[in-house]
């Protein structure tokens, strides 16, 4: 009896401290939802034989885990490649001096707009900010076509956005501030508040509320919109401001982490993520729009060519964010 | 009293619980092979005396000798409780509730093989008329039987001294009488010195060789039952009236 107990304990202690020492491997941290990122990484493993050890997190929790982990690990980075769902968080890391500047051949087909000017990050496959609405609750004529329509009385207390302190919503607001100027943006936010806008805990929560009919419509990302359509037949999607300032386009970004020695394997994955194959895979799995020109798109996926993008400088917008964050916090809390 | 005869000696013992002084410069000698009763009202420090003798409490001042060996001194235990060759019957008996009568008694037997232990335990238990209760748990026994088990357990290691802290307080007169008789007989059989603590002077008068009356941590009177009965000490007179 006692011996079995001891053996059992020994076994689980060994299990606890056993760690695979595989030299032909790399560590990836990604904030892109596991359902979509994992298949891409698995494919890379299969093609190259390089083992990918991933740490996943989710936008749903504002990626607290990964970002804070990267910051805390700064003095002895574990991570080789950081794959982010948006350029914003990458900008935070760039400011904290955690990234490594790298120019990839694979990125040649991608527009300069979607790259960091110092090459700390490179964008690929993009999502857009869109409006989703519940067709049972809004007639075609009533569907907002501009973000500025949302201050209209007829949508009072029936529009949802995610908490603008986090994630892509922050980025959206920062973009607005840089496009229409601080003063107009603040006026707009104040009238949103006056119109009792509903602040949800995340983009996923916005989706949920629209699908359930708690609100008429809400701002969210294309991947959430895509899921909403899969879940419910009565969801419509609108790219806002196509006649005005345009819709916000948010690329994924990939960066290398600054280390004593940045491995070749890391660069291989970097290149792989920027390849057309990856963009096609992501277009298929979550309707992301490829940034390489002329990629053959699966049916039903929009191309960047069909959308009027919001004209912003991604580098500057990330900087803008730091200026308005205090204001946004006050705005949320005052609700 | 001649110190050659005394097996336990407390010298200038004082003891506090935080700022409550319980024993005040107490000097006490216990005669060998006698039954000594320590008599006092509750809260007078009787239990504390037993605990000091047993080494469960460290004296704040003074010295304690057992068989002429210094076992405790100010703030120090020199000989640990298990080396003092004594048995202790606690006020609450302290039978281990999750062990059977057999296990309670065999628990401390060491350096013996299984059949030796069995013989030993059975021997003790039959002496106390508990043969039928080997596999019972303490709570399945009557109060008197529990006392017997506690005494049997204390005697299993053949101690020289038995310290008893009011173990019979809750018994009826008849059972009490029976156990007291046992105590006298085992004293003879085991060649024991017994220190017995109680607030019941009639019990003391019935079987004590010596009686020590204490109050508020000080000895009021000590000697034979006769001496106590004729004491002129106010407290003693008052105490044995009841």
């Amino acid at each position, binding site marked *: 009896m006692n011996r079995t107990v001891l053996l059992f304990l020994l076994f689980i202690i060994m299990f606890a*401290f056993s760690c695979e020492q595989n030299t032909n491997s790399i560590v990836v941290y990604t904030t892109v939802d596991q359902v979509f990122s994992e298949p891409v990484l698995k494919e890379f493993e299969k093609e190259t034989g390089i*083992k990918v050890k991933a740490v996943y997190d989710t936008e749903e929790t504002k990626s607290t885990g990964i970002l804070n982990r990267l910051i805390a690990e700064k003095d002895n980075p574990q991570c080789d490649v950081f794959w982010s769902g948006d350029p914003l968080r990458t900008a935070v890391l760039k400011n904290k001096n955690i990234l490594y500047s790298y120019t990839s051949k694979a990125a040649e087909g991608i527009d300069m707009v979607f790259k960091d000017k110092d090459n700390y990050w490179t964008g690929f496959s993009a999502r857009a900010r869109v409006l989703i609405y519940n067709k049972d609750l809004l007639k075609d004529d009533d569907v907002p076509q501009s973000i500025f329509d949302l201050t209209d009385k007829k949508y009072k207390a029936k529009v949802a956005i995610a908490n603008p302190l986090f994630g892509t919503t922050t980025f959206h607001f920062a973009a607005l501030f840089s496009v229409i100027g601080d003063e107009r943006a603040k006026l707009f936010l104040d009238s949103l508040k006056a119109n009792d806008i509903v602040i949800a805990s995340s983009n996923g929560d916005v989706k949920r509320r629209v699908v359930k009919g708690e609100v008429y419509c809400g701002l969210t990302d294309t991947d959430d919109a895509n899921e909403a359509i899969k879940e419910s037949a009565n969801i419509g999607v609108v790219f806002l401001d196509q006649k005005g300032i345009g819709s916000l386009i948010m690329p994924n970004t990939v960066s290398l982490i600054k280390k004593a020695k940045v491995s070749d394997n890391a660069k291989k994955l970097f290149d792989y993520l920027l390849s057309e194959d990856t963009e096609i895979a992501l277009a298929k799995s979550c309707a992301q729009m490829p940034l390489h020109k002329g990629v053959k798109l699966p049916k039903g996926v929009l191309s960047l060519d069909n959308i009027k993008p919001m004209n912003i400088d991604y580098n500057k917008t990330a900087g803008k964010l730091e200026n308005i964050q205090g204001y946004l916090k006050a705005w949320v809390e005052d609700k | 009293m001649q110190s050659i005869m005394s097996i336990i000696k407390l010298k200038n013992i004082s003891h506090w619980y935080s700022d409550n002084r319980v024993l005040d410069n107490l000097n006490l000698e216990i005669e060998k092979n006698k039954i000594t009763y320590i008599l006092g009202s509750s809260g007078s420090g009787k239990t504390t005396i037993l605990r000091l003798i047993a080494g*469960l409490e460290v004296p704040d001042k003074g010295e304690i000798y057992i068989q002429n060996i210094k076992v405790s001194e100010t703030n120090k235990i020199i000989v640990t*409780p*298990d080396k003092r060759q004594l048995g202790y019957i606690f006020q609450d008996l302290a*039978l281990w509730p999750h062990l059977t009568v057999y296990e309670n008694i065999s628990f401390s037997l060491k350096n013996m093989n299984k059949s030796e232990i069995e013989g030993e335990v059975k021997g003790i238990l039959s002496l106390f008329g508990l043969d039928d209760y080997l596999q019972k748990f303490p709570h399945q026994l009557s109060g008197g039987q529990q006392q017997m088990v506690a005494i049997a357990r204390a005697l299993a290691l053949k101690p020289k001294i038995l310290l008893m802290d009011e173990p019979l307080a809750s018994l009826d007169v008849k059972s009490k009488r029976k156990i007291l008789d046992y105590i006298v007989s085992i004293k003879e059989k085991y060649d024991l010195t017994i220190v017995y603590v109680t607030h019941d002077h009639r019990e003391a008068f019935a079987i004590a060789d010596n009686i020590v009356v204490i109050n508020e941590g000080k000895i009021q009177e000590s000697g034979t039952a006769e001496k106590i009965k004729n004491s002129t000490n106010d407290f003693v007179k008052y105490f044995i009236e009841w």
Partner: protein
Amino acid sequence: MLYTIVLLPVLFLLVLPVLNIVVLTFFDSNLSESIASMSTDLFMLLLKSLAISGIVAFISTFIGIVLGFSLYKSDIKYRNVFRLLILIPLFISPYILAVAWKDISVLIFDIDTSLFKKTYSFIGMILVHSTIYSPLSILIIGSALSNISKQMEESALLIGGFKDMFFKILLPLIRPSIITSFVLILIFSISEFSVPAFLGIRVFTTEIFTQFSAFYNHNLAMLQSLLLIFICVFLLVSERKRISNSVFLSIGTRGKEVKLYSSRKIVIFSYIILSFTIVFTVFVPLSILVYQSFRTGTSKFMEALSLLLPTISDSTLLAILGSIISVFIGFVAAYYSEVLNKKLMNLMLLILFAIPSTIFGIALIKFYNNSILNFIYSSFGILIIGYVGKYSFISTKLIGNSIKQIPKSLEEAAVIQGIGFFKRIRKIIVPLVLPSIFASFIINFLFCFGDLGISIMVYPPGTEIMPIKVFTIMANAPESLTSSMALIVFLVTILLISLLFFIFKKIIAKYNVNY
């Protein structure tokens, strides 16, 4: 000796990392700036959080008393089944419970006006938290109730009626466990974060979270957490004071018999209240999960199963190892604190318990992420260290309350008879507190098995553990998949817990604990 052997690793592996970041925070150049930004608004927020969590603790403890009595003192059938069922809310994730309840209330009440929404959110948070934490209270209070010896109640019943006995004897006797339950739940509730975040309530923890994940301001978050830690420590220390002043009933030295009430009124009341609670906290949310999982057929459920199956064995082993160590450390800390009055380790564990998970995670990273300790940081070892640091205090608390009830004489009797220290522990103390050792093992297991806060900060790259996987998949998954995963987690947990119960029953029978 044993104390030192256990204390040293606790100090070096668990406390030092925290000390390290506290020191780093205080030597940071922006310290004064951070302090300046802690306005009065923050203190108001703290008060608000305290008020909400106070209500939660009050309600949960009240439920704990009523249901504890029904479960442990009334003569009902299928007691063990009820005991197991009532524990269930403890292992449904708070977030999922919040979502389920919100869905129901939207269906029933069709909440509309924003004023109502705001009050609703508060009520919602109190409701969800009370649901999750009541089982803890039931467990704590129930085990105290079952330690009261029959005579005490019966003698009171002879003099007064049931009511007198209940209020004048029973309640005062279990006062220590009532206080413990209140304080523990207050601390749990005030440091829980997912429910207020989901319901959009601004509380102290969401504020700390914002500093972390919107501003990446570790120093300010750290300072704010210190405030929270300070409050928790204050609460627990004053709890200790109150408890040590109150009577502590003891395990009978002459054996124990639990009085069970079999009057029709009490038994029927117990059945009703237990069934109601189980329907309300278990059946309703579960049916919603089942409905949402299978509404579109079984395919999503199968998908969830294939996603989660590979994670079960690692997660289970980790949680078991984590809780074995926690219980061991908890026992040692409790024994030395209660019997030998050495309280240092207790205090250390308390502080670790009060630290928000994210901060603890960062502390672990900063300490373990270097070339020397990398073998721990890159293995499951880091998770175990995280679990043990965060949850050992629960064991200390539960086992400590039990050890307090053992009369000192039981051990002293053994000392005099020359029984060595380890044999005393093994053969006397451990068997007597076995029920609370098991209770804390179960609770620790549940917390380790479901831990997200620390795990997400430190789980080794390339590994998969269940809560993380559920969480990272849940984000974008359709409702049916999310619900399926919640359902599977639930089923796996209940299976494991039943297994543990079964094993414990065997061990308890072997040790004759139900004397």
